[in-house]
């Protein structure tokens, strides 16, 4: 009996890993990775997941953005039934998609649909970096293309929230071609004189940055969002110099003329509503 008591106690000891220090378990409290402040999770949701102390913008899921963005009960998602295949037969790719799908409740790394912002109808594509790093394969490209086409057909603006590591390696050149596919759709939308707003969030890199994300009529970004074509490490190895700390941040891009504005997320919905309102044309 006594021996058993001792072993039990021993089993109860857990040594926290180095990661765990920054990783307060999900639940009542959330720790800001930037200023380390502990915040009540329900308070964080009230501030659109922006740290009230240091303004750090937490990552958001696509559905969380929907909550913040649309007039109540106006959003209707589309193309939730599309499923990725494994065209290059990459080992465990299918399983990874399935597990991310379960984790996020999304069929792929983008949520698309139509809803109202400030009373005006818009089509949106909201990428979710919790799903395969938000990478773009065939389904992501197809869903974004269909959202743009829906906007073109209805004569309404399209807003794309990017959050992506770039093209999805496991679908090879098919992923690359999604950059072209979304572009031909955007060209048609633009040709009708319709508004496209690109909102770049953490992170917008690689093939997504080098296609639809960079060519909005209006390019917006969230504060400190990582935005760039090549990865920081690759650039450092190529040019053999240390890059400035603010390299490839939203503020850096604004300074270099690549963005129209950096918008705090707490003002984002209002900003988008205003911009969309400015482009509403009188119905004839």
């Amino acid at each position: 009996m006594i021996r058993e008591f001792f072993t039990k106690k021993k089993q109860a000891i857990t040594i926290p890993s180095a990661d765990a220090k920054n990783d307060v378990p999900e639940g009542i409290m959330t720790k800001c990775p930037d200023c380390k402040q502990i915040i009540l999770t329900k308070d964080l949701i009230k501030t659109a997941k922006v740290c009230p102390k240091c303004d750090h913008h937490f990552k958001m899921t696509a559905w969380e953005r929907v909550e913040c963005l649309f007039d109540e009960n106006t959003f209707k998602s589309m193309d939730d039934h599309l499923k990725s295949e494994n065209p290059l037969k990459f080992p465990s790719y299918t399983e990874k998609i399935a597990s991310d799908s379960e984790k996020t409740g999304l069929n792929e790394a983008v949520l698309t649909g139509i809803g109202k912002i400030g009373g005006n109808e818009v089509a949106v594509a909201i990428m979710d970096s919790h799903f395969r790093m938000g990478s773009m394969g065939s389904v992501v490209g197809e869903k974004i293309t269909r959202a743009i086409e829906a906007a073109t057909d209805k004569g309404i603006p399209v807003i794309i929230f990017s959050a992506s590591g770039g093209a999805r390696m496991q679908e090879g050149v098919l992923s690359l071609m999604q950059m072209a596919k979304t572009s031909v759709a955007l060209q048609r939308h633009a040709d009708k004189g319709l508004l496209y707003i690109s909102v770049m969030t953490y992170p917008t890199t690689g093939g997504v940055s080098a296609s639809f994300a960079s060519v909005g009529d209006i390019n917006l970004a969230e504060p400190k969002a990582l935005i760039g074509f090549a990865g920081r490490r690759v650039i450092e190895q190529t040019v053999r110099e240390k890059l400035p700390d603010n390299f490839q941040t939203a503020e850096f891009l604004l300074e270099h003329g690549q963005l129209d504005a950096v918008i705090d997320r707490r003002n984002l919905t209002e900003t988008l509503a205003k911009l969309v309102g400015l482009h509403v044309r009188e119905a004839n």
Partner: protein
Amino acid sequence: MSKTLAFEEPIVKLREKINELEEFTSTNEVDLSEEIGKLKTRLSNLETEIYSNMEPWDRVQVARHPERPTTKDYIAELFEDFMELHGDRSFGDDAAIIGGIGFFESMPVTVIGHQRGKDTKENVKRNFGMPHPEGYRKALRLMKQAEKFGRPIICFIDTKGAYPGKAAEERGQSEAIARNLIEMAGLKVPVVSIVIGEGGSGGALALGVANHIHMLEHSTYSVISPEGAASILWKDASLSKQAAEAMKITAPHLKEMGIIDEIIPEVLGGAHRDPKAQAVEMRKVLKTSLDSLSEMNANEIIDDRYNKFRAIGVFSE
């Protein structure tokens, strides 16, 4: 003699043996012509066998061959009265992309292509064919110019990728590529792109939103280099041979996936063995392409391009 690639070694060895025998007979009074004849037949069989059974990794080696013909080589063979035009009108002139106007079969055309160097000095000047944003913006300027004058556009794709540098990021590498994709989509004139070497990712695609895309038999077109794929997917760059297979980056694979239109056959062993003969093959395909596109009006050309890219993707509903 050009650089020998690993898979070509049996051919080179046999050729050396034949040369030795020939030399021996010329200095000694023995007749070995029958043996030499037999060996020559074996050599030609061996060449056919090896060059017609190239693995993806072998093709990657041919695509990267230092003597592989570049955009400039093909321009010299395919176009008359070519004049190079420089600059993006806002920052500079990027030597990694060249462009200009000339005649193809007596028709004025605009030609644009990535430009590698063949030696260190030229590669430094050309930045190894890896463009900065001003290169893509020059290309776009020339495309809009072609559109104004109703000239078809021919693009040669030959780059490892857009340059991953600090200045390139500062000047908007992403935007420059993205802008080309969306603007090319709306061009009212026919666009034909030919991948002549390596087609590396977004930096290649920025000259690739075309009505027709053709690939030289041993060229590659991919989202990432085999080395890059191996290090990202398996954390081991030495697995690039396997990655070349798995990523499906060769002309036959892209044809199979319906991404490209024609595979342009290469002269035995690769284009570098006979650039003139290679250009003859390219001329045929280019002519057929331009002829079929010349029957379309502006809207049909744009719709044709739309339909082409709209259809790419593998998924289930």
